[in-house]
């Protein structure tokens, strides 16, 4: 070794070239192991734990006074708003087959009701120009017209024991349950209108829940039932591993 002065040995005996070779080998092995994988199975517990803690943080952060604000100059998405449903084709309520559509509001309420579209439209109406936040990362500005959720809750005399609410649909078995505070946010509506027109089947006709405080997948389209519950009830995407809370 002393015959080659270019081979440098540090005081503690770590040979530089060995260090480089072994070091880069380890680093590349770690990288290769991690590439496009879901990560080690052993981490699942840790990730679940983090999700529970994040849920607590997010619910603490939630304020009824925090409003979604559309940026000045933002354009409406219009027909660029993507249309998602889980059924193989656009779910359409066939009156000839299923009878007249009605929204059932039940569970922990003093006055369970079945509301036709006309009944919904008689309740106080609001139009919110808000952002749509998709879990994929895109946003879209739209104006949603419908019944403020708080008005609906008052109409059915919400029981204070109701801590969660499940939004169910006729798009196969799609549903998503929410914490009650997000549902009672001022910008949450049961929407039957989009951009000044009646809601179309592509976006959840006859009625859907819409709120900027939840990611897109939490906003159930093609509503059939709104059920108030004492405990959470999962959801179509939540059960497949997306966060149950999905708050924005």
């Amino acid at each position, binding site marked *: 070794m002393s015959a080659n002065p*270019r081979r*440098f040995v*540090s*005081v*503690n005996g*770590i040979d*530089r070239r060995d*260090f*480089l070779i072994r*070091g880069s080998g380890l680093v590349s092995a770690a990288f290769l192991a*991690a*590439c*496009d*994988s*879901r*990560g080690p199975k052993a*981490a699942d517990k*840790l*990730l679940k734990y*983090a*999700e529970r803690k*994040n849920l607590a943080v*997010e619910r603490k*952060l*939630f*304020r009824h006074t*925090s*409003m*979604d*604000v559309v*940026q000045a100059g*933002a*354009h*409406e*998405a*219009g027909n*660029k*708003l*993507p249309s998602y449903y889980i059924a193989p084709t656009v779910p359409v309520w066939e009156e000839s087959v299923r009878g007249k559509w009605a929204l059932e509001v039940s569970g922990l309420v003093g006055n369970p009701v079945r509301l036709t579209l006309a009944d919904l439209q008689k309740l106080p109406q609001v139009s919110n120009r808000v*952002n*749509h*936040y*998709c*879990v*994929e*990362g*895109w*946003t*879209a*500005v739209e104006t949603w017209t419908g019944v403020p959720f708080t008005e609906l809750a008052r109409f059915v005399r919400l029981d204070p024991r109701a801590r969660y609410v499940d939004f169910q649909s006729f798009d196969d078995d799609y549903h998503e349950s929410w914490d009650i505070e997000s549902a009672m946010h001022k910008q949450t509506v049961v929407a039957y209108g989009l951009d000044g027109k009646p809601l179309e089947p592509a976006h959840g006709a006859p009625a859907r829940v819409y709120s*900027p*405080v939840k990611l897109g997948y939490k906003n159930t389209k093609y509503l059939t039932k709104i059920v108030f519950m004492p405990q959470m009830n999962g959801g179509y*995407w939540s059960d*497949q*591993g*997306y*966060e149950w809370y999905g*708050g*924005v």
Partner: protein
Amino acid sequence: MVGSGLRIFNAYPAFARKGEMFCCYPFEHKPIPDWLTFGGWLGGARHWHFAMMWLLVVNGLVYLTFIYLHGEWRDLVPRKGDIRDSWQMVKFYTFRRKDHPHQGKNNALQKTAYFLLPVFGALAVVTGFAIWKPVQLSWLTAIFGGYVWARYWHFIAMLAMVILSIGHIFMVFAVDPYSLPSMITGNYDPSHSPEARNARPFYHLFPRRTPAPPMPPPPEAT
């Protein structure tokens, strides 16, 4: 964090709001290669990202507390002349200056990089919160120009950190590999410093320019 972030980004590899165009990203709608991503799928990557973000935050706070308590932040704050000195380092590395500019612990380019890294780290964290909670923390999102721009700055902060880290690691191996053992042991031989060796990248791998001393004549046979 980078890999899972890129996996999330790939779910919508663009910045434009639906129905709009985005000015400032040349690769709109072109996904990042899968081998650079981590998490396997959108939901999995989100779980990794939202779990590990706390580690990044804690790590950053420990780092800042440490350099504050040890006074080492003084080595990092930019000073007058740093830009000029950085330019001298660039000139040296590009063979437009012969001798290594004089430096203390770190040269001006290093100082700039080590100052910018935590700045971009903090930017990544803060813009991260801005796009995690654009309604609940709408005031924060507004500071960065709204959700679309906050998401863009989050991406830029990541890119800057990746570039700085790759540059840093490259320079460690290419210019000052003698500092590698000293990162663990603390011993550093100043006679091997890049300044003492007048080292440009990979200098230590090239043969010396100075001619070898003449060979002594072979001993006379007796």
